[in-house]
């Protein structure tokens, strides 16, 4: 189909319905409200259910229920709302259920502000709720990638039976770019979920959806089994983009929309004769460790650029593993790093290393 001009929030909603999502439970919050509004307008026409719940906590527990019944289901919110959903997300992970949670991040902590931020990185990648669990975390940087990652997130969530998260920021949610969608699929054609609680029809044993295990051995075994799945994901599912890293002296690490500002900064630095490059993680969990380890052999230093006080920089340091210095530059609270400031930081890093 031809390209259409759409806001990130709306493109995500459209992509979700096209890949078979028929259940959306949410609660409004800036800057993701257009996503829910689009669902409200279109979901019923697509034969699905849109429900504005009484709270974020209610919404995520509706997701838990629908996921248990095998539905392709999602919710979306922004930072404070995602904090409220954490208990439910932990239960969903503990019950090994697939779903999609969208976080269009705004400044924090607390109610924070409504301008774009990336300060929920720790929450998304290090377990925002309790227990040994992970989410698949996707961090697209354009409206097209947002649409593409939506169907991938649903598919991978199903494949590994775990919740996936798409992490955008206010800017990505609000901006319009041309986007081309895949043809819609019929949810009935999705792979079967034999574990779902859809009624036994007197033909099979009961399926039970649960996250309570009072026998420690049983719970430990489940966590070990789950960790094996996580290991496989760490090995195979990391996504990233590399720009001009091969000969780079300084390599920026940046994700989401800030990676695009960083890309412009790399070009500006190159124009000044500085060998700069960019690694853009597309999955934040699993983190693309290997490419950082590989580039640590040739680069002189790394610079993590974020809209936070420094969160992803920890994963960059772990991946570089002391081989080269890793610096940080960030703005937070809704402020966006400017291209010139990033170029100045690049120059500073090179001087220091």
């Amino acid at each position, binding site marked *: 189909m031809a*390209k259409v*001009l759409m806001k990130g929030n709306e493109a995500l909603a459209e992509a979700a319905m096209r890949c078979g999502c028929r259940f959306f439970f949410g609660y409004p919050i*800036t*800057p993701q409200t257009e996503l829910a509004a689009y669902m409200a307008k279109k979901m019923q026409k697509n034969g699905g259910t849109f429900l504005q719940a009484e709270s974020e906590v209610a919404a995520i527990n509706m997701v838990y229920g629908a996921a248990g019944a095998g539905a392709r289901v999602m919710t979306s919110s922004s930072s404070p709302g995602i904090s409220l959903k954490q208990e439910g997300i932990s239960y969903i992970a503990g019950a090994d259920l697939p779903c999609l949670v969208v976080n269009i991040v705004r400044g924090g902590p607390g109610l924070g502000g*409504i*301008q774009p931020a990336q300060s929920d990185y720790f929450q998304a990648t290090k377990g925002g709720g309790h227990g040994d669990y992970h989410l698949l975390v996707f961090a697209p940087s354009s409206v097209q990638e947002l649409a593409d990652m939506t169907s991938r997130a649903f598919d991978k969530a199903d494949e590994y039976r775990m919740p996936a998260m798409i992490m955008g920021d*206010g*800017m990505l949610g*609000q*901006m*319009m*770019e*041309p986007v081309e969608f895949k043809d819609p699929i019929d949810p009935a054609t999705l792979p079967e979920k034999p574990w779902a609680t859809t009624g036994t029809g007197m033909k099979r044993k009961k399926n039970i959806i649960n996250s309570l295990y009072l026998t420690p051995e049983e719970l430990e075994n489940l966590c070990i089994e789950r960790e094996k799945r996580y290991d496989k994901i760490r090995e195979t599912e990391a996504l990233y983009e590399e720009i001009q890293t091969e000969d780079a002296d300084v390599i920026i690490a940046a994700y989401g*929309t800030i990676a*695009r*500002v960083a*890309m*412009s900064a790399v*070009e500006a630095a190159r124009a000044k004769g500085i060998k700069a490059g960019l690694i853009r993680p597309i999955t934040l969990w699993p983190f693309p460790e290997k490419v950082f380890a590989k580039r640590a052999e040739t680069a002189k230093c790394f610079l993590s650029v974020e809209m936070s006080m420094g969160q992803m920089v920890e994963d960059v340091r772990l991946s570089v593993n002391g081989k080269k210095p890793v610096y940080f530059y960030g703005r937070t609270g809704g402020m*966006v790093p*400017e*291209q*010139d400031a990033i170029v100045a930081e690049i120059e500073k890093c090179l001087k220091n290393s």
Partner: protein
Amino acid sequence: MYEQIVIAGFGGQGVLFAGKILAYMGMDTGKELSWLPSYGPEMRGGTCNCSVIIADTQIGSPVIQRPDALIVMNKPSLEKFVDAVKPGGVIVLDSSLIDTKVERDDVTVVYIPAMQIAESAGAGTLGNMVMAGAYMKAREDMYNIEDLYRSVREHTPAKRAGLAEKNIELLKAGYEYKQC
């Protein structure tokens, strides 16, 4: 081509819409483009702006630090953005709403009483279209005005076709305006 345009004014003046039709033209002519609005708790009456980039190559930052072009419809926005415009850039300014002159000699400034022109055409809310037309004239080496008319027609729902024609009429008024 890598044209970075900031359109700024008060909420309600159609700043975002003016950006949107330029974005549609970019898309319809096969360019890369991005459209980024300012968003906040302030809406009607507050200042509002949007950043549009139309380019031949992949677009990096959707945030514009130094615009090539500024289309400006109120004084606070002029003060905010005037120094950011690149040397050699263009400023299109609604002289019926802004009574000051631009004190820079390294940019091209188009003074156009857009609001007045729109009002005398019986469409006081379409000053934004006059401004967009004047911008197209200032950049006639870059675009074809017919592409913009086509995009406006194409992306207006059929039942509101009259509105598209009115928009085009005002775009044309801006495009054909002769600065004295």
